[in-house]
């Protein structure tokens, strides 16, 4: 079976460097410079995969990134295997292993192939129609779909490769290094523009570099020879950076482009080691020149998908660039002159071309004579009506086309062949152009979408701009470049150009067959198995918008995004619906142009670099003392401090008891702190908090609640008046940045007349919160000079003191209900002050506690946590915190909203306490609450927001939001859980020390 189809040494292939690789477990050989596709074809392997829906055998179809069929799994036996790689883009290296995808047990015998014979059961919208009914069957269908469909397998361990990001700023970015891109980049750089030239291939020169068309001449030399000299000169040009193997994935607004530079995929394993695999280039270019070329179109006819059926241009590239014959008996099928070039290329290399089938009546191109001289038979005005061969093409049947092109006449001619080149014309690669937001226009005569306008910042040159013939390309490029770069002359102005011109055109989107369409399989999207029949069915069923037809038939929704067949889909829709293609518009091309690995997208931002961690100044002490940590925003906070083999529950119970019975200490450094100064600081606080601030005396603290303008609770915290025009505000840990942002917003945009300055000082202070009946004694040991009497230092007041000459702020405030002091020290002394508290507290068994105990202690007191007991739908009234809403103040943020009809409703969800009938049952936070158990549908009254087992009360306690909860005191409600219903009683939110006696204990 293995056969060598290498026909002629190629200058692009290093035949001295033989490379072995494995495909589907078998070893093959190729040469340095081969892609996996060219090496497989050289070994006469075309069958490389199965189609998605019908599991039809599929072969290599193209030679580039538009490949729909040859999608392979790289390193299939490794747990870092990579799916969905295009064989046409993989450069082979010693040790490469790849396998077919989407087939089981093997590409040659595929069980799913039975779908092919069941095809009448798989029409457009099949998945929508079938698997949606009956609903209960979905799980069974899903099992079936998942096992028989699927595009490759994903890796199951962490990607070990290194990826990188780089920012690039340039004057001119040129995308595509074909003849247009090279001339554009060269002239830009020569005129002192800092220029970057990118191409997805590993070689420069595009398709010109390997064309063997004697009719295309520049300065009386072949165009490819002339271009080689131009490429050679690039080396000596300053200001020009060239990156090959670099594919532009996205083109965003303001000339911001993302490109993937592939650095090591083509290297052998040992050379890959410790190197960056791929780099994401983030490019901001002043000007962008798109020279992305054109993609050859297939032709849509019955059974146009057999292995061995390829794009005509790909066959030419395999022969001219890789020196590989795609078949031993070749046929071309075309609607334009370009297939004749491919045919002649093969013929000149001694590869047999049986015939050319042309749907046109004739062509007066010069190349026709050469084809005739070569003795290749041309069938004018014929079309292929069917093809033969299951795993490899073995022949075609052709018939004469009717004059209007909608039917076939005469008798059927059968021709045997093992390779068919199809040439349906060219589609400008406008994907990046449209991604940038620019609009297309439809050229009715040539049946192509082309860029509508060039701008000061962007032009499209060469075939992506709609210029296909050499003289047209070069002349327009010269004109466009001069305007775009504002230069007088290019270095290629005045070169002599000779080339043939195509004058005869005929386009038929869906070629007729002698069979009715229902009996044919004309594939439009090869990867997703969408046929012209499916598109027509969608239209019959009433779909009109191109975007809807696309989704219903899955046309253009594969990994290739329908690069080959989208135009035909549009054409068939236009023909069937009787509208003009220009009016139909086109589907949106979305980034990425070709798929990107996640590794490239995230770059270095993995593992510990995924997000910023913030740690408090006391962090080292917490680690030394075996704290478990929890993430709060970006902060790592001490969660609890387990002793020996304590569970979390045991540790929290112990910590909670200690804090109430003797002394506890909490690291509260993460609370947001905003320094507020200015002559209008008091007025400012009046406007942002619900309560009044003007009368707060210097040295006093006050709790404040901040609302959104919609009246819902936004944040809370204690603010201290440090001086006449000086306050320090604390916010919740998670809300700090947003609160600062909101305050700045109001100051700058609504109240610019206020004299207020805000500074975030969260990181400037470390905060140790001492709590419990013995906290006063401990503080007294640390600062013996300070009078801690309730007269001198009462609850909700502040003192500035020196501890070991370190200036500290102490607030006597409490979030636990116990006597409590918060010591704020400069951050760099945080650990020292903390240590001092621990030392002084030893005799009182001072117990460090974490966030979990803090939450429990505050829940015992019914203090809310914004974001846990509130969710952006709770007003202060809903929280039973009416006491903090000033009735006297004329206005504050959110005040008016508290008087809206909805917020004033009596039966809104309100915060209440819940006590379980069985005091040992702890409710689940988030559990739903109902009043009736046997009612259907049952009304959800609310949910549990906080729930703990209180060691100080020796029972379970919970906070919950319940519809009309305020009026339900003492009522019995139920929490239905998976296995049981829990009975609860609605209670007050304060469970412990309702009279606040412990604050002064």
């Amino acid at each position: 079976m293995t056969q060598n189809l290498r026909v002629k040494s190629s200058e692009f292939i290093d035949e001295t460097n033989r490379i072995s690789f494995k495909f589907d477990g078998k070893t093959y050989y190729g040469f340095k410079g081969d892609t996996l596709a060219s090496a497989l074809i050289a070994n006469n392997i075309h069958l490389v995969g199965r189609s998605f829906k019908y599991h039809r055998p599929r072969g290599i179809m193209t030679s580039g990134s538009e490949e729909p069929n040859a999608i392979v799994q790289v390193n299939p036996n490794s747990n870092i295997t990579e799916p969905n790689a295009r064989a046409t883009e993989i450069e082979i290296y010693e040790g490469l292993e790849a396998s077919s995808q989407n087939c089981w047990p093997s590409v040659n015998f595929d069980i799913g192939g039975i779908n092919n014979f069941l095809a009448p059961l798989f029409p457009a919208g099949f998945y929508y129609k079938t698997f949606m009914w009956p609903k209960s069957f979905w799980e069974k269908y899903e099992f079936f779909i998942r096992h028989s469909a699927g595009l490759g397998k994903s890796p199951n361990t962490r990607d070990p490769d290194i990826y990188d990001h780089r920012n690039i700023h340039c004057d001119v970015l040129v995308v595509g290094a074909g003849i247009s891109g090279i001339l554009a980049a060269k002239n830009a750089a020569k005129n002192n523009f800092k220029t970057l030239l990118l191409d997805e291939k590993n070689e420069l020169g595009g398709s010109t570099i390997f064309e063997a068309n004697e009719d295309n001449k520049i300065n009386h030399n072949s165009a490819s020879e002339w271009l080689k000299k131009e490429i050679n000169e690039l080396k000596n040009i300053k200001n020009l950076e060239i990156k090959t193997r670099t594919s532009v994935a996205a083109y965003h607004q303001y000339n911001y482009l993302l490109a993937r530079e592939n650095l090591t995929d083509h290297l052998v394993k040992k050379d890959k080691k410790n190197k960056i695999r791929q780099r994401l280039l983030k490019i901001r270019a002043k000007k962008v020149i798109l020279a992305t070329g054109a993609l050859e179109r297939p032709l849509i006819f019955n059974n146009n998908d057999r292995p061995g059926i390829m794009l005509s241009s790909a066959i030419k590239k395999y022969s001219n660039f890789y020196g590989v014959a795609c078949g031993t008996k070749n046929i071309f099928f075309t609607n334009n002159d370009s297939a004749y070039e491919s045919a002649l290329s093969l013929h000149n290399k001694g590869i047999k071309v049986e015939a050319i089938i042309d749907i046109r009546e004739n062509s007066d191109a010069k190349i026709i004579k050469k084809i005739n001289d070569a003795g290749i038979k041309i069938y004018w005005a014929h079309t292929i009506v069917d093809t033969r061969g299951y795993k490899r093409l073995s022949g075609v049947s052709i018939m004469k086309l009717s004059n209007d092109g909608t039917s076939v006449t005469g008798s059927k001619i059968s021709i045997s062949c093992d390779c068919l080149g199809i040439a349906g014309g060219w589609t400008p690669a406008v994907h990046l152009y449209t991604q940038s937001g620019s609009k297309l226009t439809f050229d009715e005569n040539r049946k192509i979408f082309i860029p509508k306008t060039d701008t000061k910042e962007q032009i499209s040159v060469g075939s992506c701009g709609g210029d296909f013939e050499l003289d047209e390309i070069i002349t327009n490029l010269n004109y466009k470049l001069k305007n775009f770069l504002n230069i007088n002359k290019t270095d290629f102005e005045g070169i002599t150009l000779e080339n043939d011109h195509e004058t005869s055109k005929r386009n038929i989107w869906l070629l007729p067959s002698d069979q009715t369409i229902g009996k044919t399989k004309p594939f439009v999207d090869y990867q997703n198995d969408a046929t012209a029949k499916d598109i027509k069915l969608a239209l019959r069923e009433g779909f009109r918008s191109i975007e809807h037809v696309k989704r219903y038939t899955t046309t253009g929704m594969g990994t290739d995004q329908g690069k080959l067949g989208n135009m035909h889909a549009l054409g068939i829709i236009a023909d069937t619906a009787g509208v003009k293609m220009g009016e139909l518009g086109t589907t949106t091309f979305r980034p990425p142009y070709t798929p990107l690995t996640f590794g490239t997208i995230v770059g270095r931002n993995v593992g510990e670099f995924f997000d910023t961690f913030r740690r408090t100044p006391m962090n080292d002490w917490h680690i030394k003392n075996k704290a478990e940590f929890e993430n709060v925003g970006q902060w790592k906070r001490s969660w609890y401090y387990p002793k020996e083999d304590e569970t979390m529950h045991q540790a929290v119970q112990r910590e909670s008891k200690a804090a109430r019975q003797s002394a506890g200490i909490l690291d509260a450094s993460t609370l947001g702190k905003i320094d507020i100064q200015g002559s209008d600081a008091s007025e400012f606080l009046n406007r942002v908090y619900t309560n009044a601030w003007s009368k707060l005396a210097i040295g006093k603290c006050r709790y404040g609640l901040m609302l959104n303008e919609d009246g819902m609770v936004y944040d809370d915290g204690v603010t201290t008046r440090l001086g006449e025009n000086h306050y320090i505000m604390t916010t919740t840990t998670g809300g700090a940045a947003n609160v600062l942002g909101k305050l700045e917003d109001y100051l700058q945009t609504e109240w610019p007349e206020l004299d207020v300055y805000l500074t975030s000082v969260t990181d400037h202070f470390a905060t140790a919160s001492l709590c419990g009946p013995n906290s006063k004694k401990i503080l007294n040991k640390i600062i013996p000079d300070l009078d801690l009497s309730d007269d001198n230092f009462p609850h909700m007041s502040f003192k500035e003191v020196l501890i070991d000459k370190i200036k500290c702020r102490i607030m006597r405030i409490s979030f636990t209900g116990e006597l409590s002091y918060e010591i704020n020290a400069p951050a760099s002394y945080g650990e020292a002050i903390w240590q001092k508290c621990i030392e002084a507290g030893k005799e009182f068994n001072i117990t460090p506690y974490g966030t979990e105990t803090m939450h429990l202690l505050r829940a015992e007191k019914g203090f809310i946590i914004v974001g846990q007991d509130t969710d952006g739908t709770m007003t202060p009234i809903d929280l039973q915190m009416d006491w903090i809403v000033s009735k006297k103040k004329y206005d504050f943020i959110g005040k008016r909203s508290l008087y809206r009809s909805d917020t004033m409703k009596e039966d809104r969800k309100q915060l209440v306490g819940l006590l379980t009938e069985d005091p040992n049952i702890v409710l689940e936070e988030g559990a739903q609450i109902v009043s009736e158990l046997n009612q259907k549908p049952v009304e959800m009254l609310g949910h549990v927001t906080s729930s703990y087992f209180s060691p100080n009360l020796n029972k379970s306690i919970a906070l919950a939001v319940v519809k009309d909860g305020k009026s339900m005191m003492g009522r019995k409600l139920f929490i239905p859980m998976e296995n049981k219903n829990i009975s609860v009683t609605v209670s007050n939110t304060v469970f412990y020390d309702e009279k606040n006696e412990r604050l002064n204990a």
Partner: protein
Amino acid sequence: MFLINCPYCGERDQQEFKAGGEAHIERPKQPTELSDDEWAEYLFMRKNIKGVQFERWNHAHGCRKWFNMARDTSNDEIKAIYKMGEKPPTQ
């Protein structure tokens, strides 16, 4: 990704900025005088037009200043950038 010309810092990448919704909606000076409907108009109703839209932007990872932008939402062209308190440009 836009390139935004902060009136205080100059041209910077969009990722330094935060969008802040529709511009020129002034907070009523006397909210309590407003009917529920009038207050709702201020609080909830925002335009979402295809064409030139006036927006608030904040240079959050820069000078932290708020400013206004006139942006054509159909093609993302930034027509004008002007400081808070300044009148929107007439086209």
